[in-house]
């Protein structure tokens, strides 16, 4: 049992925690006020991962971000995995728990990607059933994150903002607004990201994500952005973020950098930039 006393995420910058940054974060966190961990990396019995996590929890508010629950899956939730999440949240007492509007498991096979869903009433029912179950088992409200998508479903009946808002209304869950994902999906799906942000239910947002994307090309020469998390946050995403927090007020804001992870000062500089945007939004 561990009581860090950090019951909420502060409306400050946070970073996705990488073990290679442990000593640097402890020595010079800069404006970083909280950290996010991927739940699945901390489900072992002991060793360095849990030792680092215990040390971080004494100092920082923590957000546990699941990447393996497959909340949008057609099959039932993995009860064993849900029990592991409950155990982790049980001893760590994180300030927040979040997962994705996506699926990643089929027939017991885990694909380690956030796969897309058609936005239909049938999908809403299934996702809501799964979120109800997660919130019941964990005994806490969760945040659901908007995905980056690369293609659309012919059967989709409604737009993503309406879809997420309806799920939050039915389940009482909060939302995690990934501004980079909005920008990526906007380019990929030909919608206006600024309009998406304007229509988003900001009162339900418990956390914002920012990350880098890569540029590619789709069929028929159309532009395609990839949610790669391997570079700095792009300038148009910073602009969208500024518009977002000027509308919503300051929110806990995470810098995600998962691939080609840079040295700590580079990541901290991204947090400094987020802090300056949050300062203006106050």
């Amino acid at each position, binding site marked *: 049992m561990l009581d860090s006393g950090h019951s909420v995420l502060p409306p400050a910058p946070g970073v996705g925690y990488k073990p290679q940054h442990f000593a640097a974060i402890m020595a010079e966190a800069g404006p970083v006020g909280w950290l996010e961990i991927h739940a*699945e*990396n901390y*489900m*072992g*019995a*002991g*060793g*360095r*991962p*849990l*030792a680092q996590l215990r040390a971080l929890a004494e100092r920082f508010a923590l957000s546990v971000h699941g*990447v*393996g*629950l*497959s909340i949008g*899956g*057609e099959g039932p939730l*993995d009860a*064993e*995995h849900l029990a*592991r999440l409950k155990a982790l949240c049980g001893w760590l007492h994180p300030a927040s728990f979040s997962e994705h509007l996506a*699926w*990643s*498991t*089929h*027939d*017991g*096979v*885990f*694909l*380690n*990607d956030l*796969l*897309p869903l*058609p936005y239909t009433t049938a999908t809403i029912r299934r996702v809501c059933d799964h979120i109800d179950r997660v919130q019941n088992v964990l005994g806490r409200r969760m945040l659901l994150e908007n995905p980056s998508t*690369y*293609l*659309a*479903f*012919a*059967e989709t009946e409604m737009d993503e903002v309406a879809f997420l808002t309806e799920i939050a209304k039915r389940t009482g869950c909060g939302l995690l607004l990934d501004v980079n994902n909005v920008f990526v999906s906007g380019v*990929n*799906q*030909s919608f206006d990201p600024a309009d998406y942000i304007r229509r988003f239910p900001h009162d339900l947002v418990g956390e914002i994500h920012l990350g880098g994307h890569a540029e*590619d*090309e*789709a*069929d*028929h020469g*159309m532009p*395609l952005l*990839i949610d790669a998390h391997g570079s700095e946050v792009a300038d148009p995403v910073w602009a969208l973020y500024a518009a977002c927090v000027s509308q919503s007020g300051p929110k806990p804001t995470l810098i995600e950098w998962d691939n080609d992870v840079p040295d700590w000062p580079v990541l901290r500089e991204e947090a400094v930039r987020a802090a300056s945007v949050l300062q203006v939004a106050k």
Partner: protein
Amino acid sequence: MTQAQFFDALLTPEAAPPPGLVDPLGRVAPRRFDVYRNNVAISLVRALEDGFPVVRRLVGEAFFAAMALVHLRAHPPKGPLLVTYGAEFPGFLERFPPVAHLGYLPDVARLEVVLRESYHAADALPVGSDDLAALSASQILTSRMRLAPSLRLLRSDWPVCTIWRAQTEGGPAPVMQAEDVAVLRPAFDPRPHCLPTGALNVIAGLGDGLSLENALGLAPGVDAGALLTLLLQERGIVEILA
């Protein structure tokens, strides 16, 4: 369209995307589907690379990546804990014809599996040499010992410990002979140790709850003092049960 159709197309290279997936203008969009296909392949190949860095070094990065894709189609992860992905990889290597000439490779993979198990194993306060010094020789011999949860044993027909050390620490080149290995984790980083003949049986006996005396009886000739020194130095004993 069902997720089963999506899933099957993801894991089948060159297969057309399932119907009903479109671009913003309602057209079929195979390149868009390929983004998901690539994400799945790249991230799961990377998960195997993370788990088997020494096998990767031995066969080369490009060969490893190609082999990991073949392995992925046969043994995709059965759950979201990728820190344990690859349990079937040693067996896969045994049956994968292109590496049949590298007889030691499956056991190097087995060593990497147990190293990773050790890395994530539970913590336990170790017994120090002072604790042992408080006991008489006959008390030590009749004691049972609880071993560290991070301790692992591996018996191989190949010099896997020497190969591992040569690849990661610049240790001496291996001589092709069998090795018994104990993986011990003094703090957070597990390391393999090559054991003298019979010592693996003694440690296994201790792990099964035998007294030191009875465990030593399994392998006459083992230097009990040297074995205890190794286990104490590397924090492999967590309790003395008199």
